[in-house]
C-alpha cells in the first residue's frame, strides 16, 4: 500500500456523467455579471437548472438535494464544472459556508427548512459579519439581539456583505449577552433580508456594480428559532464557518487550474513579443495551480481517512489568493495596452475577462479574513510563536 493517485472506475464514470450533463446544460454564452440585478437573476436561474439535475451541492445528502458524494467526487465535479466554464455560484455564501455550518450545528428542523431551498437557489444567502468598527477585529462587533418573548429584536449595522443587495437571507453575528466583550456572548442568527426593520443599501464596488451592501437592523424581529446553535455559541460556530470559507470548500482548485491553462494559452499566442521573464511567471502560475490541486487532494484524502482540517485553512487562503493575483498580474502585463479595455469594448474580444478577473483577484487577500490575519494565525497556532 502506498499513495494511489489513480481514479477508480466509479470515479471515472462519475466524471463522464458530470461532463455530459455540463455539455448539455451550461449556457453557450456567459451570463451577465452576478454583481448586477439582471445577472443575479440569471445566475439564480442557473442554480435552479443545476438543482433539477441534482448538481446543486453534490456532497449533501439526497434529502437536501444532494448526491452524498465524497470529497474526491466533489473535486471531480468541480473540475468538470470549471472545465465547462459553467457560471459562478451566486449562492456560494449559502452552499459553501452556511450549508456545512447548518449540517454541523443546525437542528433537524432547521436543516429541513433551509438546506433544500439553498441547494435549489430559491433562497440566496449573504454573510452579515463585518461592521464598520469590526473588520479584521471581528470580535469587536456591536450589533445586538435582545430577547423579547419568543423573538430576538435586532439592532446594528453590518457592512461589506457580498451579494446582499439582491440576496434573500443573511447569516449574522449578534451580541445576545448585554455588555459582553470580544468573542463572548455572541449568537449566530439567520435573518430574512426583505423583512420589517431590515434595510439593505448597496455599495458600489471598485468596478461600479453593487457587489456588496450594508445592512441596517432597526428593531427587526426574528423568532428565537432562527438562532443556529446555543445562545452565546456564535463565535465558535462562526469560526467553523470561517474554516469552511478559507479551507476546502470556497475555492476549489479547478478554477485556478482553468485560469492557469488560459494564461498558458495567452502566453503561447503572444510569446514572440513578450519579455522572457513572463514565461517564468506563467510557468510558476501553472505550477502553483497544480500545487494547490495536489494539496487539496492530499487534504481531502486525509479528511476521508478520519483526519481534520484546522490551521491549514489559513495556509490555503494565502496560497490561492496570492496565486489568483499573480496569474492575473501576469495576464495584465502580457496584454499591455489592451489590458485596460472593458469587456464590452469593440476590440476587447475575450481579453476583458482578464481585467474583470484581475479586479476580482485584488479582493482575494482581503475577504475571508485578510492575509495578514491568516499569517498571524499560522504563526501563532501552527508554528506556536508567542502571541503579540
Amino acid at each position: 500500500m502506498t499513495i494511489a493517485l489513480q481514479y477508480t472506475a466509479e470515479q471515472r464514470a462519475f466524471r463522464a456523467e458530470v461532463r455530459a450533463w455540463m455539455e448539455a446544460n451550461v449556457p453557450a454564452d456567459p451570463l451577465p455579471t452576478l454583481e448586477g440585478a439582471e445577472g443575479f437573476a440569471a445566475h439564480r436561474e442557473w442554480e435552479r437548472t443545476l438543482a433539477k439535475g441534482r448538481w446543486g451541492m453534490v456532497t449533501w445528502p439526497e434529502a437536501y438535494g444532494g448526491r452524498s458524494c465524497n470529497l474526491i467526487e466533489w473535486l471531480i465535479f468541480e473540475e468538470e464544472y470549471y472545465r465547462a466554464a459553467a457560471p459562478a455560484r451566486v449562492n456560494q455564501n449559502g452552499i459553501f459556508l452556511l450549508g456545512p455550518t447548518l449540517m454541523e450545528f443546525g437542528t433537524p428542523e432547521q436543516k429541513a427548512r433551509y438546506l433544500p431551498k439553498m441547494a435549489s437557489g430559491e433562497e440566496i444567502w449573504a454573510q452579515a459579519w463585518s461592521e464598520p468598527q469590526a473588520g479584521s477585529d471581528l470580535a469587536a462587533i456591536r450589533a445586538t439581539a435582545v430577547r423579547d418573548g419568543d423573538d430576538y429584536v435586532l439592532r446594528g449595522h453590518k457592512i461589506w456583505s457580498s451579494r446582499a443587495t439582491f440576496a434573500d437571507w443573511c447569516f449574522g453575528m449578534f451580541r445576545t449577552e448585554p455588555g459582553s466583550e470580544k468573542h463572548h456572548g455572541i449568537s449566530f442568527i439567520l435573518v430574512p433580508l426583505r423583512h420589517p426593520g431590515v434595510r439593505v443599501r448597496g455599495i458600489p464596488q471598485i468596478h461600479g456594480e453593487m457587489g456588496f451592501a450594508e445592512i441596517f437592523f432597526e428593531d427587526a424581529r426574528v423568532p428565537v428559532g432562527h438562532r443556529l446553535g446555543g445562545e452565546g455559541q456564535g463565535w465558535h460556530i462562526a469560526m467553523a464557518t470561517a474554516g469552511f470559507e478559507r479551507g476546502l470548500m470556497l475555492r476549489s482548485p479547478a478554477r485556478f487550474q482553468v485560469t492557469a491553462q488560459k494564461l498558458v494559452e495567452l502566453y503561447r499566442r503572444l510569446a514572440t513579443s513578450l519579455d522572457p521573464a513572463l514565461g517564468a511567471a506563467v510557468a510558476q502560475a501553472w505550477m502553483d495551480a497544480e500545487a494547490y490541486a495536489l494539496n487539496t487532494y492530499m487534504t481531502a484524502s486525509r479528511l476521508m481517512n478520519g483526519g481534520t482540517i484546522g490551521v491549514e485553512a489559513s495556509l490555503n487562503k494565502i496560497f490561492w489568493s496570492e496565486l489568483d493575483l499573480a496569474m492575473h498580474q501576469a495576464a495584465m502585463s502580457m496584454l499591455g495596452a489592451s489590458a485596460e479595455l472593458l469587456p464590452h469594448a469593440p476590440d476587447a474580444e475575450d481579453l476583458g475577462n482578464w481585467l474583470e478577473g484581475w479586479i476580482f483577484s485584488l479582493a482575494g487577500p482581503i475577504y475571508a479574513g485578510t492575509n495578514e490575519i491568516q499569517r498571524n494565525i499560522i504563526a501563532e497556532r501552527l508554528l506556536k510563536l508567542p502571541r503579540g
Partner: protein
Amino acid sequence: MDFTFSEEQRMMAAAVRELLDDVCSPAAIRRAVEGREDLSADRWARYCELGLPGVLAPEAAAGLGLEATDFVLIAEECGRAAVPEPLVEHAGVAVPLLAELAGTPRAIEVLDGAASGVLRLGIGHPVNPFVLGGGGCDFVLLMADDEVHLLARSSIGVTVEPSVDASRRLARVEWAPASQTQVAGGVAALAAVERAFQRGALYAAAESLGLAQRMMELGVAYACERKQFGRQIGSYQGLKHHFASAQVKLEFARPVVYAAVTRAGDVDDRAAAAISHAKLAAVAAADACSRIAMQAHGAMGYSWEVDLHFYMKRAWALAGVWGDRSFHSRRVQQLLGSGRLPIGPDQTFVRTGD
C-alpha cells in the same frame, strides 16, 4: 484515489528519524564537519542495520525490494538530519540504477555489496559536474554517451573539490571507458540513466523538504527564546509574517514532491514537468525557510556557533545538483510553451497509457 502514505511507510520514516536523531544530531554533525571525530564508519554501520543502503534494491540482491515512493519520506528524514554521508545518492539513485542494469557477474557482485552497504557506490551523472563522495566510494557509476560504466575507485583519477558543505566530499573524476567496465549501453541504458536522473532530482527535493522543516524549527525555537525590547522576538509581526510565508511555501511543496515521486520511472513529458516542479518547489521552500531562520537569529545566525548554517549549506548544495533552477524552470517553460504537455483540471493525475 488516496493521497496518503501507508502505515508501513510512516513507520519506516519514524524509525529512520529515531536513528538519525541519535547518530546525526546537530552536535554530531558539528563534530563531523569540524573534523574533530570521524564516526562515519559507525554511522554507516547503523544505516546498514536498518537496511537503508539497499532499500530500493531487489530482495534477490540483499535489498528490501521497495519502490520509489517508499524512499521519499526516508530521503526527507535524511535531509532533516543533514546526514553527512552520501546515503541518499547511494541508496536512492546509484543502487537502483545498478540494479536495473546489472547483468555481468562483476556488476551483480558490486550490486550485492552496495545493497548490503559493504560497498559504497557513487554516481557521476552528466548533469552534475562532480561526483558526491567521489573520493570515498569503492565503485562509481559513470556515463559516456549511451553507455553506463562501473569503475573501481582505484581505476579513476580523483581531484577533490572542497564544498561549502564540508560533509559533502566532492570530486572531479577522470576516467576512460573500456569494454570490461561497461555494464549497459544503447537505448535501454539511456532510459535507465534518465530514471536515475529522476530519482536524483526527486530525492534531492525530498531532502530539501526535510532541511526546510529543520531550519523552520531552528528559527522558530530561537524566536521564542530570544528577547528584545522586553518581549520574545517571535511575538513581533515583522518576524511572524515572514515565518508564515515560508511555511506556506513548505506546505505546498510537500504534495508536489510526493505526487511527483509516483511518476518516477515514467519517462515522458508529464513526469518531466512534475519532477522539475517538485525540485523547484522544494528548493524554493528550503530557501525561504533558511532566509527567515537566519534573519530571526540575527548576528548569531551569521556565526559558526549556531547550528543553522550546517543545514543551510546543505540546502544551497542541493539547489544546484540534479538540475539547477535554470534547468528545471526552463524545462517546465519549454513543455508549456510548446503545447506538448496536456494541462487543465482533469489532467493532474493522468498517466501515459491511461
